[in-house]
């Protein structure tokens, strides 16, 4: 009975729950699959696309001028395949199917300046964009070279190349990381609280001196630890095997982790809401998918939201994952720090306030 004389430590009790919960999570296949395996599969798939096999297929209009610096430059780029032999009547349908990423037609105007006519396709928006960037790069380079600027040409070249080295993985990985955090927050929390409620585990906890809030914090903490562990693995694999860009190295990495903690905390709120609304475990997937799937598709996880039709973009602009993805990309690729993305974080926090005020109302203990 000596233990009764000591003051009871809620923290100690909470950490016991965190430890138990972590044990449980790592032995639960679906948690590991959603947090780690799915994002890694996407990263590996896109990683290989952007690695060896990445190619932009471009048709060259039969009337195009081929005796110019821009064409030569494109021709020498190994990731661009120029094709002048596609019949004109087939070009349109090939574009529609996404087998062609773009069509170019370079013309000299009456002043002898070059005009690049570029046609891209919605079937392949990402490669179209990359191609557009490449052309821009070449054109800028040409223009500068002709404008007799004082800047040495070699230096300009270096600058431009450095600034534009945007790989598919640099776009895909932050999106996958964001989605991993969202599904961890929503699915992980919703399932475990319903299961603990139904099997009376929580009720049994209530018969011990721990406070309710410490049960919640203990559970959330374990999910946070596991998600951060997943994030580290995702970022490391991306960086080591697929050349994911961490502009400022470890500093960028730390900023990404801080952003992940903020985002997961917000997303856990969705999980609490789902566990409150769902009557049993079977009701979780439809409700949870309703929250995660639209964000998976519309929040710029796979393509930039600027590729969506204009009427759809406001929807994307309303989703919390959109802001996480954008902030994550700014940090990882543009080298922003956590304070530079205050606007995205602000929107995430506003979502957090909304979601947690709903969670407080609908969350059920029994």
């Amino acid at each position, binding site marked *: *009975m000596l*233990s*009764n004389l*000591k003051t*009871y*430590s809620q923290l*100690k*009790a909470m*950490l*016991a*729950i965190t*430890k*138990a*919960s972590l*044990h*449980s999570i790592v*032995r*639960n296949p679906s948690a590991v699959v959603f947090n780690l395996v799915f994002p890694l599969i996407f990263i590996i798939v896109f990683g290989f696309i952007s690695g060896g096999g990445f190619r932009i297929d471009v048709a060259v209009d039969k009337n195009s001028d081929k005796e110019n610096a821009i064409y030569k430059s494109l021709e020498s780029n190994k990731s661009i395949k120029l094709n002048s032999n596609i019949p004109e009547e087939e070009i349109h349908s090939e574009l529609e199917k996404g087998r062609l990423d773009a069509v170019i037609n370079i013309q000299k105007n009456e002043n002898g300046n070059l005009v690049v006519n570029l046609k891209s396709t919605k079937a392949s928006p990402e490669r179209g964009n990359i191609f557009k960037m490449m052309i821009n790069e070449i054109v800028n380079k040409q223009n500068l070279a002709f404008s007799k600027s004082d800047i040495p040409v070699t230096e300009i070249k270096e600058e431009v190349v450095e600034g534009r080295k945007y790989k598919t993985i640099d776009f895909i990985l932050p999106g996958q990381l964001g989605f991993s955090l969202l599904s961890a927050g929503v699915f992980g929390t919703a399932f*475990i609280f319903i*299961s*603990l409620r139904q*099997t*009376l*585990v929580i*009720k*049994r*906890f*209530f*018969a*011990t*001196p*721990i406070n309710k809030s410490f049960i919640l914090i203990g559970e959330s903490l374990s999910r946070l630890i596991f998600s951060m562990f997943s994030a580290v693995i995702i970022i490391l694999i991306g960086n080591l095997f697929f050349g994911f860009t961490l502009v400022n190295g470890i500093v960028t990495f730390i900023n990404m982790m801080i952003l992940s903690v903020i985002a997961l905390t917000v997303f856990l709120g969705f999980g609490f809401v789902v566990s409150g609304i769902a009557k049993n475990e079977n009701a979780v997937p439809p409700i949870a998918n309703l929250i995660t799937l639209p964000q998976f598709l519309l929040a710029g996880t796979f393509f930039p939201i600027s590729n969506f039709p204009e009427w759809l973009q406001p929807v994307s602009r309303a989703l919390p994952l959109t802001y996480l993805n954008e902030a994550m990309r700014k940090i990882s690729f543009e080298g922003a720090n956590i304070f530079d993305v205050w606007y995205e974080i602000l929107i995430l926090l506003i979502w957090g306030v909304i979601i947690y005020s709903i969670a407080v109302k609908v969350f059920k203990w029994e």
Partner: protein
Amino acid sequence: MVNNTIIQVKNLVKNYDKLEAVKGISFDVHKGEIFGLLGPNGAGKTTTLEIMETLREKTSGEVIIDGFSIDKDQNEIKKIIGVQLQAAGYYPNLNLVELIELFSGLYNVETNPMEMLKLVDLEEKAKAKFKELSGGQKQRFSICTTLINDPKIVFLDEPTTGLDPQARRNLWELIKIIKAKGTTIMLTTHYMDEAEILCDRVGIIDNGNIVTIDTPDNLIDDLIKTGFERPKLLKLASLEDVFLNLTGKEIRDE
């Protein structure tokens, strides 16, 4: 008598919306005894027990457990009671040792999980998950978790429901061992043979009211005094005796 009392329940009432589940019951539980709350399903046994376990709000009345009031000192009560819930599960994906460690943390006590398991004869199942256990093993483990904080009082809600005769007897032995260490036990059951063998005193509850409280012997004697007789004189052995004679008293957990 007052010095000997560890639990006092006075005029306890519990209403669910329009339903009156418990209608003003009063009883005492004495230190070191096994007190049984008997009654048919829906009589209010579990509701009463859960109010005493601090798991349910009462509508009115008073409950004092080892000097602590249920209104003010819930956390003090939680520290000195052990609770086994009817049909409760345990944290998923953990083995028995990890579950005991979890509860040790929740109670802020140091335990030796293997010794705890030995107490309920489950040391061989240390690495098993709760859901892999047989019915009897599950109940033994449940009782094991009620002992982690070395409680003064243990509450058992229908501990033997659904068990085969061998496992029931095995559990009775375990409950007697806990009692022998001086722990007070309050249990609910709807098996009268169980109450007769285990309980020092029983309270019979029906429709939210306590009908009577006494020792099983006194209750039986009182009934006989009224001239009651069984319609058919009992044979010297029962079918359960036959069953145990044929299948043995060894528990069949595996």
